[in-house]
């Protein structure tokens, strides 16, 4: 359970841009990766404050520590691709292009939120960016993802559906049924298992007879890799390879992204189940601070640039909070809206 123990043997992790030869484009891209991770981090730090202020209520699951996963994977996706995520999805939504404003407004429950305020933190949705939630049933999104992929297959569209889920979800029957169907039907899905070693308070050793989750996928004859999920470039490179294969019709692929959650599971969690030293050890591998160091070493980041990034990210977060604060409450009179479609054109789907 120490970072060393989850050190990555896999070749995919090694494929990364050489430090010294960074081109301008590469430098730009690297800074963008850092910026994206920082956007998640700062937004969520603010969320934690707002939760204490009781502006955000219900469950709030922070992604802090795992940012490299969402940021890395999203690089491999095209606008027409689809994303299915979990209740720990603020980062995914943000990086995918859902605005910080509508995400924050959603967490407030304001009608300007990306789900009209109805969903809250666990149910961010945005059809414009093909972000299909936001699912609070562990492993509940997996069947949905293969359905989206099936629709693409049947409609001859070379798209990818990226499906995020945790290590805990792997124990669910839904995982098994879904992976089998995906492989059997050769569906274009990129399974992204965010292995942060815990499902709430249950360590993976107490949940899985086989803790090497990448091996699980093999039982369905699905190509899979274990990736260092604390290294955004390793994630990006693996995701690009896998997404390209999926898009090329090579069937579903599976990435196990080895990461760690720095914060409590949710705001209710007293964290009795893990040692502060373990958390501290993992914090040494913070995907943002390690990447910051790396970019400095590579000579593509200096104090000034970093300050500029932080400043713009800070402004974005401030702006999002202001937007949410200024947002409005839906009238109680429309309480029973969104139960059935409102009589309207024949539309219906989000494709």
């Amino acid at each position, binding site marked *: 359970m120490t970072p060393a123990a989850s050190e990555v043997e896999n070749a995919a992790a090694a494929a990364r841009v050489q430090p010294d030869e960074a081109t301008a484009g590469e430098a730009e891209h690297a800074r963008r990766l850092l910026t994206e991770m920082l956007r998640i981090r700062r937004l969520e730090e603010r969320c934690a404050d707002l939760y204490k202020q009781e502006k955000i209520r219900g469950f709030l699951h922070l992604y802090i520590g795992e940012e490299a996963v969402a940021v890395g994977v999203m690089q491999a996706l095209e606008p027409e691709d*689809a994303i299915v995520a979990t209740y720990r999805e603020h980062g995914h939504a943000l990086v995918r292009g859902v605005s910080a404003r509508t995400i924050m407004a959603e967490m407030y429950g304001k*009608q300007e*939120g*990306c*789900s*009209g*305020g*109805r*969903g809250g933190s666990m*149910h961010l*949705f*945005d*059809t414009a960016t093909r972000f*299909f*939630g*936001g*699912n609070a*049933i562990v492993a*509940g999104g*997996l*069947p*949905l*993802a*293969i*359905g*989206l*992929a*099936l*629709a*693409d297959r*049947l*409609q001859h569209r070379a798209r990818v559906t990226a499906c995020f889920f945790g290590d805990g979800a792997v124990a669910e*029957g*839904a995982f098994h*049924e*879904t992976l*089998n*169907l995906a492989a*059997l039907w050769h569906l274009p899905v990129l399974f992204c298992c965010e292995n942060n070693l815990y499902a709430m308070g249950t360590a993976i050793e107490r949940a899985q007879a086989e803790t090497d989750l990448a091996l699980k996928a093999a039982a369905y004859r699905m190509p899979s890799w274990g990736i260092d999920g604390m290294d955004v470039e390793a994630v990006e490179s693996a995701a690009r390879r896998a997404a390209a294969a999926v898009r090329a019709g090579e069937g579903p692929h599976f990435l196990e992204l080895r990461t760690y959650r720095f914060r409590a599971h949710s705001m209710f969690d007293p964290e009795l189940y893990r040692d502060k030293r373990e958390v501290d050890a993992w914090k040494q591998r913070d995907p943002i601070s390690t990447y910051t160091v790396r970019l400095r070493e590579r000579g593509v980041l200096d104090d000034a640039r970093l300050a500029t990034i932080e400043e713009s990210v800070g402004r974005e977060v401030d702006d999002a909070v202001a937007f949410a604060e200024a947002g409005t409450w839906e009238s109680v009179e429309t309480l*029973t*809206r*969104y*139960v*059935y*479609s*409102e009589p309207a054109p*024949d*539309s*219906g*789907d*989000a*494709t």
Partner: protein
Amino acid sequence: MTTYREAVRQAIREAMLADDRVFLMGEDVGRYGGCYAVSKGLLDEFGPERIRDTPLSELAFVGAGIGAAIGGMRPIVEIMTVNFSLLAIDQIVNTAATLLHMSGGQLNVPLVIRMATGAGRQVAAQHSHSLEGWYAHVPGLKVLAPATIDDARGMLPTALADPDPVIIFEHAALYNMEGELPADAGAVPIDRAAVRQTGSDVTLIAFGGTLGRALEAAGQLGEIGISAEVLDLRTLRPIDTDTILESVRRTHRAVIVDEAWRTGSFSAELSARIMEGAFYDLDAAVARVCGAEVPTPYPHHLEQAALPQAAAIVDAARATVGR
């Protein structure tokens, strides 16, 4: 002459011919021909992509139906029977029924789920449930129970045209029912109950598999001079309360027939609604004739004793009219 089974098959076939977004998915719908032979022959006509056999993975293939629906398809998912739907009910309740709401109106789910329901074939305690009422409890779903060949033929296209998830319950005992179906039979509304026989003394309310028994009882009641109106609910969610109340206000008495275990069955909702909407019109307490509170026993005589029979409906109706 055709059968209920044929009518469902015809409905599926025409939907698939009319709209290539429609496909059928479920266990043994293809090579086997459907566990009730509903889809026999369709694999040859439409091929394995559109008549899609699934493994025994109810949760995943129902969820895949939801995903395919939001991805632009018009899936018909067949769950062999309501008994196995319990393995998929999480996806139906927590995903299909909630997506539109949780997304603030962005994601409707144009999915049709068909399944067989009911008892009467001596297949015992794990294969004889009647859980239509559970699904009818869930906002976001629409729930249909075609009891006639016309409805078996006509409800499916309407359900497929609906932007939201629709569940169709086909009572297993009906598949062999024979009758005429006009050549131009087509879509029928799915928001109205139907008066199958008019009467003035008591309203018998039934749906799906119990309509036949209610009509049988009405016949027997007629012989003893009691005029029974028979109402076929057709749609369990939304309930056509107006039609029910209109009838009961005329007859002043009602008997509800429901094959499910009595306690907590859908019949209770109908009973409560009638009281709420027509209390001062009632000349007697609304009666219910339901399944006995026992897991379905295997032997024929015990199973039949556990199910609502015409004789019990007659007795209940007589009690309400007092003769």
